[in-house]
């Protein structure tokens, strides 16, 4: 498919979600809203993983920073419950970005598997604070938020809130799309493919990665602000390692380096976690199975499927497989 047709398809899918969701029963709407919030988080991670080649195991930290900021401002200072909600959105993005700017100093110079470990450690630090710093975070109790903001528009209404989250999702998608197509985004891909070559060409690769890390943190913070209001409760459970790992799965499942892949992955994982467990008591088998099968059989994620099917049709199966695998391995 060429770029224009892809764009058309994405717009059509977005329209379908936008039009169908409000009529789809109130629980589905909640699920879709949750999925959209996580889609923002997954896309922020895709900037690191898919475009820059940095697998972060600590993305939940930024979600947590945004969410706790929102909850603490709302309960302590009653701030952000009217038009000041927009201020909180900005603050949430800033705190995510600032946290990433700090963490990036430790993490960005490391490569590959060391980057995984450092981001894991940094994520655990944030969790540790959320879990034990009782006087600020309420510890294990978490923080229950007051009803959602209203500023002429009642966000307490689930449909309205869905539209808001949807708007944020589309804005994030568009912003990140512009970002990855910019010269900056192209050099990130260059770093992913061959960092040494980029350095020889005179790029400051550390700075590029550092900026990408901060941008990802900012979008993570935004997801956190929305998550706090979507859920009405912020708890250390939101910041656990499993959330970060889930975010990774979303990206890998959908297709790294595609942005929308992360969104699709988010939809599937949110559905699995929140809905599947209501259908079968042994939901962990399915969740574990999805992890294992994705890794073994879907190296390029779901979005690579059409490509794989087409090339399999076009050529004898064996060579097509080899070619796809080749293009996946980097």
């Amino acid at each position, binding site marked *: *498919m060429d770029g224009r*047709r892809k764009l*058309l*398809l994405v717009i*059509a*899918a977005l329209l*379908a*979600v936008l*039009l*169908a*969701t409000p*009529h*789809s*029963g*109130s*629980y*589905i709407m*909640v699920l879709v809203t*949750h999925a959209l919030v996580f889609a923002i988080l997954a896309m922020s991670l895709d900037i690191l993983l898919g475009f820059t080649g940095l697998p972060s195991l600590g993305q939940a930290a930024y979600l947590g920073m945004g969410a706790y900021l929102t909850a603490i401002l709302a309960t302590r200072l009653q701030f952000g419950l009217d038009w000041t909600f927009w201020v909180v959105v900005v603050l949430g993005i800033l705190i995510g970005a600032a946290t990433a700017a700090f963490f990036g100093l430790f993490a960005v110079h490391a490569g590959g598997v060391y980057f995984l470990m450092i981001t894991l450690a940094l994520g655990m630090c944030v969790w540790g604070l959320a*879990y*034990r710093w*009782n006087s600020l975070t309420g*510890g*294990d*109790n*978490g923080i*229950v938020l007051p*009803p959602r903001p209203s500023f002429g528009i009642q966000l307490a209404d689930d449909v309205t809130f869905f539209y808001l989250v949807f708007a944020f999702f589309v804005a994030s998608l568009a912003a990140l799309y512009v970002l990855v197509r910019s010269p900056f985004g192209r050099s990130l891909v260059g770093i992913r493919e061959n960092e040494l070559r980029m350095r020889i060409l005179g790029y400051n690769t550390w700075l590029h990665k550092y900026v990408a890390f901060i941008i990802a943190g900012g979008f993570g913070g935004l997801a956190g602000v929305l998550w706090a209001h979507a*859920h*009405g*409760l912020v*708890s250390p*459970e*939101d910041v656990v390692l499993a959330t970060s790992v889930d975010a990774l799965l979303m990206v890998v499942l959908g297709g790294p380096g595609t942005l929308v892949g992360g969104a699709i992955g988010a939809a599937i994982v949110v559905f699995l976690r*929140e*809905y599947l*467990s*209501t259908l079968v*008591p042994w*939901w*962990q088998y399915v969740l574990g199975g999805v992890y294992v099968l994705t890794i073994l059989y879907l190296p390029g994620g779901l979005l690579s499927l059409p490509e794989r099917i087409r090339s399999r049709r076009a050529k004898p199966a064996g060579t097509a497989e080899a070619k796809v695998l080749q293009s996946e391995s980097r």
Partner: protein
Amino acid sequence: MLKQIGRSSTWGWIAGLLALAGFMGAPPAGAAQELRIGFVAPTTGAFSQIGRDMVNGFQMYLDEVGGNFAGAKVTFIVEDEEAKPPVAVRKVEKLIRQDKVHMFIGGLLASTGYAIAPVSTRLKTVYVASIPAADDLTQRDAGKYPLMVRTGWTSSQPNHPFGEWACQQGYKRIVAIGADYAFGHEVVGGFQKAFEDCGGRIIQKIWPPLGTIDFGPYIPTIKKNADAIFTLMVGPMSLQFPKQLASAGIRLPVLGGGTSYDEFVLPAMGDEVIGHVSALQYSAALDNPKNVAFVKKYREKYGKVPSYYSESNYSTAQMIHEVMKKTKGKWPGAAQFVKLLSTIQLDTPRGPVRLDEMRNPVHNIYIRMVRKKKEHGYDKDELWNTVIKTYPNVGQFYKYKKEEFLKQPVYSRDYPPCKYCE
């Protein structure tokens, strides 16, 4: 050609997406004379046995009446809340929005209670708190949750008389060590208030996080010149603490909140807990006919002695049945149901139960000592929570005046202040 396939598949995708969206919208149908009950309990994770006790208790009563409450067919939907407040919130939303339940029951942790009670108000659905003991749900915040009824207990409820009892035993200086979350704070707080009002002194408070299993850092800090230790443990903590306390050579008398020695964990415990005393509204060793029958039947069915988690949900089912008898199986509407449920008076395995005007049970509190003996005609020596004293009909404010009690802040890490801490 290829291009055409591409285009038609684009439209195919769009059509598929729309079809999927349409499918998602199909609403579930509800039959007449049906009572839809949602139940949240942890069935995976560290608290899964407790979750099963909860479900089993409710299920056993349902089975006894053939799944029929006075003509209303009961649809019982269990959701796994993993003992995590955010998961519980999501599951409750699902029960209400998707399954259109008339009420939801359960939740395990007090923090979960605080998290899901607002959902009951927001989505206008009855919440029956059979386990979460968070004090303020039926105290200072009771007005915020008009559709919530508690059939379990408040955390501090058994510990007011217990604090007084401890003082009367002659204990003067006690060290408190409790799980660091709402429930722990409130249990210890209730004990401390009554104990200190009677002249005792809490000389130290230690707060290990919920889920602590290595008490190595905490046990050595316990002040050795105390008269006794008051512990509040939950889940896996209950099993490890007494063991590690004993092997650290601490021989002080041990008192505890009810969950520290509850029957969910008692059979796995060692002899070091013999002689430990705790307070709760239930003990499997209670010697009334209702309870003896309940214990025997439960044990036969599920292979273990019921815990308070089982009893509380069994009794909850019984209370709901009573309400439905009054309405002849018709759902009376949320507000009316709450009204009816709060006027119920009933004999349950734990003893007589009625609800106060803030929709919290008034029931007996039992002071129980762990003893190794034969009980209810079983032929093996086992650990039982033997009742050594009964405080009849204890309400959530105990002897305190409601108005004055409600003026003080909810029990927390810092309230009552530790004025005798050394």
